[in-house]
């Protein structure tokens, strides 16, 4: 699960980093943010989450008035001319675990952002304080560049300050100057694999099998790993596909229900051992039926939509036909 603002601020305090927080209504743009904190003297930042063709991610954090040319940046990273583009909304949730409009270098505290590269505007260094969102749109965090560095080092990152407006020639004799900032790994998305421990009995034909342990732990070939992550990234792009993903929906419903039950039961029983195994059994029994019911729902809803679409097209065709006469 992603860090909350409070957890982040607690961490900053632990590190004895000075900061100031300003609360305001949720803001999605720098302009909106400026309305509330623009007059306070600190430097507003604009933050982008970018993605390259090999599904590697980059957070580019710059002063609000720095010009960022994605084409130039792409070349400097060695990705060719059109290698960078804005990442999809879903990536914000899945990789940085922040809401829309809330990209921030501080999100790198999350494990899921482990493989995201960070490019910081060298302009920050000359500012007394810089403004970033601390994992929520409703707060602006004021922090010095040095303090930001301290934080980044504490989470295992080397801060990389870059002249984002520079446009050096990139060619045979001039290798891309930012190539070292390209991540070597691919971001791991939250583990959607169901951790099932099943025992395979000895069948009549004499096959003896050991119990497989958690599926997540099995060694995979790099190709399989890459392909899996690619798949997950691709499937998270279409919101309709997400909304109609029955397996995911059922898991969420079951988790919410069983968590709620568990909380109530453990309150009464004072024994946290029994309840989880009961809830597992209940989950297994109900999930299958629930999945079937949801599939019926999905098919029925699709059919209704299909019918409506068909009728609508028919009507408009007939209308235009009769008008031609």
């Amino acid at each position: 699960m992603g860090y909350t603002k409070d957890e982040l601020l607690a961490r900053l305090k632990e590190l004895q980093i000075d900061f100031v927080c300003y609360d305001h209504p949720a803001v999605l743009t720098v302009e909106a943010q400026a309305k509330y904190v623009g007059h306070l003297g600190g430097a507003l930042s604009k933050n982008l989450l970018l993605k390259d063709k090999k599904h590697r991610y980059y957070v580019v954090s710059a002063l609000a008035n720095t010009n960022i040319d994605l084409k130039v940046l792409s070349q400097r990273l060695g990705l060719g001319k059109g290698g960078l583009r804005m990442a999809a909304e879903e990536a914000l949730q899945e990789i940085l675990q922040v809401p829309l409009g809330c990209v921030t270098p501080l999100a790198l505290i999350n494990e899921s952002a482990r493989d995201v590269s960070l490019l910081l505007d060298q302009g920050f260094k000359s500012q007394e304080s810089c403004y970033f969102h601390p994992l929520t749109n409703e707060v602006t965090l004021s922090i010095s560049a040095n303090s930001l560095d301290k934080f980044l080092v504490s989470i295992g990152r080397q801060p990389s300050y870059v002249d984002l407006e520079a446009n050096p020639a990139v060619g045979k004799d001039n290798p891309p100057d930012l190539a070292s900032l390209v991540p070597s790994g691919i971001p791991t998305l939250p583990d959607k694999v169901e951790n099932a421990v099943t025992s395979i009995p000895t069948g009549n034909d004499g096959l003896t099998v050991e119990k497989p342990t958690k599926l997540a732990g099995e060694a995979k070939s790099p190709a399989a790993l890459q392909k899996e992550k690619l798949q997950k990234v691709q499937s998270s792009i279409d919101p309709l596909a997400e909304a109609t993903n029955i397996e995911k929906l059922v898991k969420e419903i079951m988790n919410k229900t069983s968590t709620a039950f568990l909380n109530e039961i453990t309150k009464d029983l004072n024994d946290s051992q029994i309840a989880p195994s009961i809830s597992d059994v209940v989950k297994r029994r109900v999930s299958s039926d629930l999945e079937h019911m949801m599939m019926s729902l999905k098919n029925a809803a699709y059919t209704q939509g299909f019918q409506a679409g068909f009728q609508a097209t028919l009507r408009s065709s007939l209308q235009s036909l009769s008008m031609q006469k």
Partner: protein
Amino acid sequence: MSRFPSSQSTSAMAEEPTKVGSAGGGDREGEDEQVVNPWEVTAKDGGKIDYDKLIEKFGCQRLDESFVRRVERLTGRPAHVFLRRGVFFAHRDFNEILDVYERGEKFFLYTGRGPSSEALHLGHLVPFMFTKYLQDAFKVPLVIQLTDDEKCMWKNLTVEESKRLARENAKDIIACGFDITRTFIFSDFSYVGGAFYENMVKVAKCVTFNKVVGIFGFTNEDHIGKISFPPVQDPYFRMTRDVAPRIGYQKPALIESSFFPALQGETGKMSASDPNSAIYVTDSSKDIKNKVNRYAFSGGQDSIENHRKYGANLEVDIPVKYLGFFLEDDAELDHIKKEYGAGRMLTGEIKKRLVEVLSELVERHRKARALVTDEVVDAFMAVRPLPLMFS
């Protein structure tokens, strides 16, 4: 002597590169050995079917536990019951499909039914249940062919009746839980034409008359419709696998399932004419209880004393076999086999458990089927874009 589940015919079209089909195989064999051909399967003198021999003879590969684990790893979920328990015991080139999948390339599923009767029994559902699992686990599209034209020719039904049966069967198939955003169902009478027909002709050109006679045993009395439409799966699929490379396509892969036994056991015949030979999806809980108690062949001993002493014969016991197909919980099945085999559990108890499991299954199917209206069938059968078919 147990027969096949209904012969599901599929025409040998490879519209797209790779296919996986569900099949139950057969070919002519010597009379004194086990007999396996398109119309019957017998074991040697009332014993067990020797699957290893089958595998060897037809050149399939065994579906072993390393294969099952590979599937689990690639799909990120437990394998289907049928795979875990060896119900599906052999395959052709399924490893290649897994390789394709691992590389991030695409494949799709293809299965079908020859709609010859209205009533479907559990044996008919087994391949569809497995196909649904494949669709969900690999997130791939599925094409289902209803060969109403073939049944019209072979079973001497009218065209209208064949088409009607096709639609009725489609409802039961849909009720198995296929995803409308990645499933296309078609009936031959409604769909053959265009690109599909072009493929049919391409394939037909690669198959000689002699070959067809050799595989299917036609005689001069058989009407010509039958020749262009051989009835049974596995020889048909093997023909496809032979032809596909010749017209520029990759060979489809296959999975073979073991035969779903009739209620009366290996010596019984599962047929549409004997309603007590199988559990139908239209059976009430009372029917199920009655059928299981009265007709399910038991491997238990003839008296309680003997049973406690010797235990049950799990090889021939039908309730245990059926539970192997339909009881989800591995631990419980294990426990039952142990207790029943040792004689501590009685036939009555195991039958009671089976009745529970089957009733739940049939009830769930019935509910789902009630939600499949003609409009839903129309939507599944409409020629339409499927943008999310791989997501």
